[in-house]
């Protein structure tokens, strides 16, 4: 992943646009910006395992949902909000590390299935452990008492902060031994082990990184909506959507997942606002077209233009 200045410029512009929405736009736009930031963070997070390492992970919703629940349970126990988010992040990170040590022994298809099963199992456990999680009734969280504008801005900046942290982590990993090793694993895991890469540890690190930002986003999201339940928190759809976003933008790049998330969320926005009955189908058509005409993701457009002729 060679991230040129273009990628950084795109990112900076994107983040600035999102951050400045409260200055000129109404609350709904701010909210959309916060959702873009949230999905951006999820997709960027996924990139560690899916993009760098090339493992088709579908665990995003599990981490997000666990983040929701750990955060909510802490908050209900009286832990201050931000501390609750932190606890959620750490606990889910630890959980991902443990889980990773087990399911990362699987490769390819089997890993994909294992990771998707994790979402289901988490959902089922959360919904049957009613004493702690409220089961199918879900959990209510204390609503913030500030005015709607303030709440919205606050969560926009929280989501942006998570996004920026995930991007910084990406940039750091990209340059480090870890990033190099992960890319080797992506290319050829056997050979990677043979040159001395502790593949298990590296993969677990990537998987954990792919979890922590999701958990943080989930915990913040729970505080934001004020009510969570198992079906909403562990959505299989989210688990498929996030990799799709990353693919749309360009998996394995710094800016791609964020751009893909932004494009996806905005497209959804346009379609369901304008096509009541056919929004899903139209989005489906757009996805199909993108797969055909931009298989390398949106970023490949920019790259094609800047790269010129064949090397």
């Amino acid at each position, binding site marked *: 992943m060679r991230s040129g200045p273009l990628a950084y410029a795109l990112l900076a512009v994107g983040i600035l646009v999102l951050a400045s929405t409260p200055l000129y736009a109404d609350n709904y736009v701010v909210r959309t910006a916060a959702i873009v930031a949230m999905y951006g963070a999820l997709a960027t997070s996924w990139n560690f395992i899916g993009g760098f390492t090339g493992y088709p992970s579908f665990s995003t919703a599990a981490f997000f949902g666990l983040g929701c629940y750990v955060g909510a349970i802490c908050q209900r126990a009286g832990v201050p909000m931000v501390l609750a988010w932190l606890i959620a992040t750490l606990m889910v990170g630890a959980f991902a590390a443990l889980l990773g040590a087990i399911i990362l022994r699987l490769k390819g298809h089997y890993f994909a299935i294992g990771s998707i099963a994790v979402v289901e199992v988490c959902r089922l456990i959360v919904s049957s452990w009613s004493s702690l999680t409220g089961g199918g009734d879900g959990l209510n969280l204390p*609503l913030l008492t500030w005015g709607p504008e303030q709440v919205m801005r606050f969560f926009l900046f929280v989501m942006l902060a998570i996004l920026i942290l995930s991007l910084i982590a990406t940039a750091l990993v990209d340059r480090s031994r870890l990033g190099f090793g992960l890319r080797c694993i992506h290319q050829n895991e056997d050979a990677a082990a043979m040159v001395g890469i502790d593949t298990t540890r590296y993969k677990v690190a990537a998987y954990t990184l792919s979890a922590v930002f999701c958990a943080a986003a989930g915990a913040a999201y729970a505080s934001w909506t*004020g009510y969570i339940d198992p079906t909403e928190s562990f959505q299989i759809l989210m688990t498929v959507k996030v990799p799709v976003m990353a693919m749309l933008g360009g998996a394995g790049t710094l800016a791609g997942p964020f751009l893909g998330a932004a494009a996806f969320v905005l497209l959804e926005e346009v379609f369901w606002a304008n096509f009541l009955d056919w929004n899903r189908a139209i989005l489906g058509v757009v996805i199909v077209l993108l797969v055909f005409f931009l298989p390398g993701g949106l970023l490949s457009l920019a790259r094609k233009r800047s790269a010129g002729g064949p090397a």
Partner: protein
Amino acid sequence: QETIKIGAPLALTGGLADEGHKQDLVWKMWVEKVNAAGGLAVGDKKMKVELIEYDYQSEGQRASQLAEKLINDDKVQFLFAPFGSGHTKIVGGVGERYQVPTIACVASSESVFDQSLKHLFGTLSPNGGMTTAMVKMFKEKFPDTKTIAVLGRDDVFPKSMAEGIAKAAEAQGLTVAYKELYPVGTMDHAAALSSIKAAKPDWIYVSGYTQDLILARKQMQDLGVTAPIVTMVTGPSYKEFTEGLGKLADGITSSSWWHHATNYTGQGVWPTTADFYKDFQAKTKGADPDYVHGSCAAAGEVIAEALKRTGSLDKAKLRDAIASTDIQTFYGPIKFGPTGMNLPRELPIIQVQDETIKVLAPADIKNAELIAMPK
């Protein structure tokens, strides 16, 4: 000319699409009727009503997103909450934050209203009212009833019904021989039904959504699981249930919040239940409305009344006016309790007899007696 804007995030696709379409249908009927009459009275002038709907695809996250869009972009003055307790909570939370009065027509779990959302009002009565009376009546009619088996879907409303009935049954001296929840996404009830069969209960009570209940009834038949009383909540309230089961629906009891056989008179565009029934039949070419239709169609009257009384569009005033609503409609009385929920009333108990819905209680609208399940 200014209009009154009501926003409704609806599930037009996804798991709750059918319910969403019902809401969409009657709300549109109501708006049409109101506007044909010149609009709603706000003080002494009349204003047209505009209904703005978005499809939230049965996804909670999106429901809250669309509620915000309705408030911020479309500047609606009121929200109609979508179907189901869970999504009502989510949309209610958004309404609360923006202090936009939100009318929930299809949420009956007390847990939705006990979180001090000051702007959320529900037209259904608490579902606690559906259990105690039912146990009492069945015990009275069938004194041999000693044991009950309960199978409930693990979802806000069906779960609270399952738990409520078990509690009410125990309180009145029945033995709960079996009580389990099944998770959302269950494809098959054979295992649970086989266990129930082994327990030989006098009463089988199943809660869930239409498709779960159709499957459960069908499998009961297949596996030879029977009891003198079989209750499926809220199966027979829906025509999809009776249509899907045909003959098999016979004998099944349930409770409901409203039935078109009732005869209420009140204010609004449909002064009597019969008026509404007639319009509805005309619109749907002969279909029968269920409680979702009734409750949603009546919800508009809450708004109409509040506007009439306050004579302004001030949100805070409107909220207070709604809180003190006390009206009669074709759907029955609407008067909100301290949590914002319609006050308890005697709810209809119904039974399918010869593939049609009969009302067993309350006494004033009753048109049949409870019969045992056909063998």
